[in-house]
C-alpha cells in the first residue's frame, strides 16, 4: 500500500517500522473476516484494515491523535487474529503497539479515563497492591448494582467489580524467589516467570507448573528481580512503564544460566517473545533478543521435553479454549491439545475457536460492552460441545470465562493432576 511519509518523518525509527508494516499491507481485506470487533460491529473502522488505515493517516499527518482514531484503536483487542489470517505477513502487532504509545503521548483522555488507566497500570502489575485492591473490590462488589447510569465510566466500574473474584486464595509460598530443584536427575534448568496478576488470582497455576516441571527432572528458578512482563502497560500505550518492567526481567534472566524461560500466562509470553523488538534501539538489545529466544510457553516446552500421564484417564471432556496470545500471538495451536490428549482427557474445540473471548488484558475492564458480547458468544460456542470443563493457558481468559456453569482451569493444572499432582480445586 502506498504511504506518504517525508524523509524527515522516516528518520524516526518507530515511524520507519510503521512505514514498513504499512507497505507490506496490500489492503486485500482478508483480516476483516476474522476480527472479533468487525464481526460484532460491522464497520470497516472496527476492523484491522480500517484501523491500519486510521493509524496510517494519523502517523502520516504527524499530528496529535484524535478522539475518532482513539475510539477505534481502543476497541482493538490486540488478539492478533488478523495476523494469523493475513497472507501478506503484515505485523499488525508492532503497528498497533506503536499507535497505542503514540496516542498515549499525544492525546489527552478524559480525566476519569486517565485515572482508571493509570490505576490499572500501576496496581495490577504489583501483586501486593493488586491483592489489596481485590480485597477492597470484594467488599464493594455487592454494591455494584448501586452504580447508576449507562455512562462508560459506570459500565467500567461495574465490570471491574464483577471481575473481582468472590473467593481470593491466600498467597502461595512457591513463587517466592528461589530455586526449586529437580526431583531425581536434573535434565534441564529453567526460569519461571512468576508474573503479577496470575499469582494473586490463581497461585495454583504456578504451583502446578513447578510441581510438574520438577517432577519431570527440571530445575525451576524464580528470579528475585523479575516481575510483571510489562505487557499490561505496553497494551495501554504506557511505554516507559512497560520498558522498565521488561528491562528488570531481561537483566534478571540474563544473569541466570537456563535452558528456557517458562511462561504459563500466554499473554505475557507474547510480549516476552517480542522483547528483542521492543529493545531494538537500546543497548540492552542483545540480551533482550536472547531472553526472547529462550521464552517458551509451558506447553511448548513440555511438548518438546516429554510428558506422560501416570494416572488413569479421568473420563472428562475438556473444551480447550485457545487463548489468542497462544494461537495468534505465538502460533502455538497443537501442543496444548496434544498434551491434554496424552494426559487422558477427551479434547473438544468449539466453533469460532479463532475468535477472542473478550478478556484481552485490561480490555474487559475498559470495553465492557464488547467484552461481554464476546464472552457470551464464546461460552455459547463452548457449551454447544457439551464439555465437563474448560481449559485455557492464560489467566485473562480463565478470569473472563469463570462464573458461568462450566468450571475453568489452566491447562497446566490438568497436566500436573494426571501426572501425579493434586486434583485442581475447580474440577468437579
Amino acid at each position, binding site marked *: *500500500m*502506498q*504511504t506518504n511519509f517525508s524523509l524527515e518523518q522516516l528518520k524516526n525509527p518507530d515511524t520507519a517500522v510503521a512505514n514498513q508494516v504499512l*507497505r*507490506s*499491507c*496490500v*489492503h*486485500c*481485506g*482478508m*483480516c*476483516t*473476516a*476474522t476480527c472479533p470487533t*468487525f*464481526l460484532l*460491529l*460491522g*464497520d*470497516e*473502522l472496527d476492523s484491522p*484494515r*480500517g484501523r491500519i*488505515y*486510521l493509524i496510517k*493517516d494519523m502517523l502520516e499527518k504527524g499530528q496529535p491523535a*484524535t478522539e*475518532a*482514531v482513539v475510539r*477505534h484503536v481502543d476497541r482493538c483487542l490486540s488478539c492478533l487474529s488478523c495476523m494469523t*489470517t*493475513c*497472507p*501478506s*505477513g*503484515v505485523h499488525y502487532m508492532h503497528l498497533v503497539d506503536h499507535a497505542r504509545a503514540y496516542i498515549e503521548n499525544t492525546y489527552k483522555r478524559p480525566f476519569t479515563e486517565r485515572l482508571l488507566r493509570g490505576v490499572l497500570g500501576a496496581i495490577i502489575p504489583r501483586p501486593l497492591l493488586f491483592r489489596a485492591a481485590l480485597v477492597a473490590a470484594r467488599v464493594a462488589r455487592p454494591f455494584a448494582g448501586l452504580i447508576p447510569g449507562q455512562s462508560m465510566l459506570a459500565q467500567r466500574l461495574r465490570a471491574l467489580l464483577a471481575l473481582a473474584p468472590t473467593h481470593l486464595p491466600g498467597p502461595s509460598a512457591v513463587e517466592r524467589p528461589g530455586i526449586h530443584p529437580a526431583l531425581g536427575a536434573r535434565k534441564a534448568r529453567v526460569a519461571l516467570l512468576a508474573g503479577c496478576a496470575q499469582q494473586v488470582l490463581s497461585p495454583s497455576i504456578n504451583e502446578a507448573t513447578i510441581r510438574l516441571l520438577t517432577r519431570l527432572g527440571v530445575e525451576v528458578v524464580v528470579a528475585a528481580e523479575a516481575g510483571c512482563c510489562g505487557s499490561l502497560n505496553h497494551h495501554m500505550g504506557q511505554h516507559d512503564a512497560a520498558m522498565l518492567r521488561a528491562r528488570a526481567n531481561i537483566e534478571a534472566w540474563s544473569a541466570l544460566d537456563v535452558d528456557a524461560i517458562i511462561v504459563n500466562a500466554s499473554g505475557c509470553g507474547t510480549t516476552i517473545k517480542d522483547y528483542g523488538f521492543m529493545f531494538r534501539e537500546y543497548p540492552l538489545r542483545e540480551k533482550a533478543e536472547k531472553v526472547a529466544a529462550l521464552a517458551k510457553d509451558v506447553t511448548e516446552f513440555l511438548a518438546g521435553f516429554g510428558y506422560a500421564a501416570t494416572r488413569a484417564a479421568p473420563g472428562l471432556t475438556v473444551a480447550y479454549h485457545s487463548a489468542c496470545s497462544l494461537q495468534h500471538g505465538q502460533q502455538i495451536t497443537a501442543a496444548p491439545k496434544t498434551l491434554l490428549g496424552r494426559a487422558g482427557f477427551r479434547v473438544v474445540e468449539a466453533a469460532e475457536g479463532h475468535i477472542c473471548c473478550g478478556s484481552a488484558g485490561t480490555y474487559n475492564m475498559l470495553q465492557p460492552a464488547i467484552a461481554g458480547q464476546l464472552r457470551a458468544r464464546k461460552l455459547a460456542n463452548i457449551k454447544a460441545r457439551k464439555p465437563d470443563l474448560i481449559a485455557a493457558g492464560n489467566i485473562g481468559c480463565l478470569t473472563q470465562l469463570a462464573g458461568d456453569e462450566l468450571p475453568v482451569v489452566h491447562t497446566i493444572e490438568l497436566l500436573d493432576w494426571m501426572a501425579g499432582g493434586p486434583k485442581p480445586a475447580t474440577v468437579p
Partner: protein
Amino acid sequence: MIRLPDPKPETLARRDAIVAGLSDIVPSTSLISDETRLKPYETDGLSAYRQMPLAVALPETTEQVAAVLRFCHQNGVRVVPRGAGTSLSGGALPMEDAVVVGMMKMNRILDINYPDRVATVQAGVTNIGITNAVAADGFFYAPDPSSQLACMIGGNVNMNSGGAHCLKYGVTANNLLGLKIVTIDGEILDIGGEHLDAAGYDWLGLLTGSEGMLAVVTEVTVRILRSPEGARAMLAAFTSNEIAGRCVDAIIASGIIPVALEFMDRPAIHACEAFAHAGYPLDAEAMLIIEVEGSVAEQDDLLEQLKAICQRFDPISLKVSQSAEESAAIWKGRKGAFGAIGRISPDYLCMDGTIPTSRLPEVLRRIGEMSDSYGLKVANIFHAGDGNLHPLIMFDANDPASFQKAEMFGADILKLCVEVGGCLTGEHGVGVEKRDLMPVQFAPHELAQQRAIKSAFDPDWLLNPSKVFPLIDPVAMAKAA
C-alpha cells in the same frame, strides 16, 4: 489517478443537510461523516485508486436501505454500494458527492432449507459464512472466490464472482435462486425464490454481475450442495509456463473436468509457499493444482488418468496430497495468493481477463514478453481450467512512474485477451479499473444498449455511476437519443 465524474456542486453544498437527513434514517453508529473516519472508506481492494466519499451509511435492515436510497433519490445524491470492500476492480470506489451504502452490518443467515437445498442470507454474510453455516450438516456453497473468507455474498452477486471450483460448479449466476433488491427510488423487490428458474424474464441473470449499477442487493437465496465424499489435490510441476499451459489445454481437451485446475508461475509459487508452507515445488517454473473429488475409487481413477496426461509434458514432479491437512495447506496457499504477493512486492495490480484455453501457452508467452519490455515483474496465478487469467503486475505505489507503467501493462494484457477471443473480465468485474477498455470489447452501439438498461433502472444515473462504462454524461446522452 482514475478520473471520476465531476461532483455535483449542489450536492457538495448541501452536505450537512444530507448528513442530517441520513441521521434520521440510520442509527448514529451506522453513519460516518467526519473526515478522519471517512478516510478508511476511500478505497477497496484496489487501493491504488482512492476517493473520499460524502458520507458512509451502514444500514441494518432492508427497510433502512430502502429509506436511504429513497432519500438519496429524492435529493439527487449519488450512491455507491459496498460489501466487504475486497473488489480488485475498484467496484466500491467512492465518489466525492456520493453516499457509500455499506452492507457489513447485514450479516445474518436468515433461513436454511435442507429439504430443498437452499439458503437465504443477508447480503453482508461472507461467502465462506454460507458454507460454515451448513458444513456441519454436510453441505456447502460452491462458488469460492479466493477472497471467500472476507468477501460478501451481495458483492459476489454484483460481480458474478467465480473461484477455483467454478470449473465444475459454475459461477455465482449458476448457483443463485433469488434476490431481494432495493431500487434507487427505494422500492423493495423480490426476484426468484427457493426454487429453480425464476418466473418471467431472467431478471436474476440481468442483475447478476450488474456491479451495483441497477439495484442494491440486500438478501440472497442460493443453492447449497451436498459436500463431496472427499477430494484430493495433485501438484504438477513443470519447466516452463508454456508447457504447463499446454498441459492445461490437454487436460480440458481430454474431457475430464477436475473440480479445480489452478495455475501458478514461479514468483507466485515462492510467495505462496512462504505463507502457506504447503510443499509447493520451489524448483518449478510453473505449477498446476489439479483437484478431483468423489469416492476414493473415483479419485484414484481420475488421478491416474490425469497423471498420465501430465507425464506427456515431462513434469519435474507430480505429488498427490496425502492428507486433509496437506490439501488444506495447498489451498491456503492458492487462496491467499494475492495477499502473499505482498511479501515480494509492496503493491500489485491484479488483472482478470479470460481467454480460450487453447490460447494459454501463447498468451502466457506474450505476457512474459510484455513483462520484459515494461520492466515490471508479473506473477501468474489463475483459474486455468476455465481460461480465467489473473496476472499480478508488481509495482511500487510510492513511485508514480511505476504505477503508470503497471496500468499500461495491465491494459495491454486485457487487450491481448480480447484479441485472442476472450473477455476483459472473468470474475472481478469491470469496476473503474477496466472501464476505459470497454470499447476494446464492445462496439459503440453495444455500449449504448447496455447504458440503456442502466437508464431503465436508474434514469438519473445515481447508482454507482462511475463504473463499468467509459465516462461520458450518460443522462445527457440518453436524452439526446
